[in-house]
């Protein structure tokens, strides 16, 4: 039963990942990633990591992916790129780079598999340490919470501070810059000759023949 579930979830994980890499429309790529994350949560459950699986579904597949969907909808996610349309689809070096990327990715996969499965660790071929179900056993929220507030308190606090910094940074990055564009165009029109003109040139005061300065 667990083997069947493992294979179903693993197929979901890998096909979701392939979908993210292959699909041209970023919106579909985000949806593929949601499927990938939910399947990955099943794998976490099979590994007895209940709390991590719950966080994966609620925070990752829920909140973070909603953020992605919003940004894709805002920026406009059609096609591979916007630059491709601007340049009439010129892709002279694109296919060669893509082939190079595929070769490098395959090499990375082979290397990782050699490193992970060819290792001398005999426990890799085992089913993991002993596990006894219970309310406070390995992987439950009580267990993780106790670890987070005792042994890993520093990591916990650093992570919360990192979240604060990221939130402030995102607000600063994405805020609306009030009237900056107009100011720039105004400055572009100003030439040195403008400084030589008398003040109030082109104003209502000049129109009625009043001399200023």
């Amino acid at each position, binding site marked *: 039963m667990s083997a069947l579930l*493992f294979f179903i979830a*693993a197929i979901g*994980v*890998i096909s979701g*990942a392939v979908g*993210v*890499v292959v699909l041209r429309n*970023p919106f579909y*790529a985000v949806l593929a*990633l949601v499927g*990938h*994350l939910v399947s*990955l949560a099943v*794998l976490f459950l*099979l590994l*007895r*990591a209940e*709390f991590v699986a719950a966080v994966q579904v609620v*925070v*990752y597949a829920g*909140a*973070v992916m909603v*953020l992605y969907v919003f*940004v*894709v909808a*805002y*920026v406009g996610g059609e096609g*591979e*790129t*916007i*630059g491709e349309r*601007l340049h009439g689809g010129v892709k002279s070096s694109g296919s060669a780079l893509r082939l190079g*990327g595929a070769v490098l*990715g395959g090499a*990375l*996969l082979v290397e*990782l*598999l050699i490193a*992970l*499965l060819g290792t001398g660790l005999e*426990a*890799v*071929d085992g*089913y*993991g*340490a002993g596990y006894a179900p219970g309310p406070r056993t*390995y992987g439950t929220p009580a*267990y*993780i919470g106790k*670890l*987070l507030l005792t042994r*890993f308190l520093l*990591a916990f606090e650093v*992570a919360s501070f990192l*979240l604060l910094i*990221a939130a402030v*940074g*995102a*607000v600063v990055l*994405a805020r609306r810059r009030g009237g900056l564009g107009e100011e720039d165009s105004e400055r572009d029109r100003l030439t040195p000759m403008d400084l030589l003109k008398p003040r109030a040139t082109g104003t209502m005061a000049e129109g009625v023949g009043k001399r200023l300065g």
Partner: protein
Amino acid sequence: MTIGWYLAVSAIVFALGALGVMTRRNPLVVLLCLELMLNGANLALVAFSRMWGNGDGQIMALVVMTVAACEVCIGLGMIVAIYRRKLPIDVDELRDLQG
């Protein structure tokens, strides 16, 4: 299933994410592929945690998720800023910082 199977899946996911980061040109999709790489690492961490039977790997996976959320936050903020300035949303054309 033995731990090795989970590690194989994590390696495949990581390699697919790396492939996407190298080949895709839309920064949104590059961010998605970075998520894939982080998820591959997460799966390996949880698998090793199961192997040893203690929760350190799971805590590490949670920290990785936090860092991923921060990365998404900043990355999407940058993409929105790029879009506001009407620059092309394409990592090949955004190379003003290239020396």
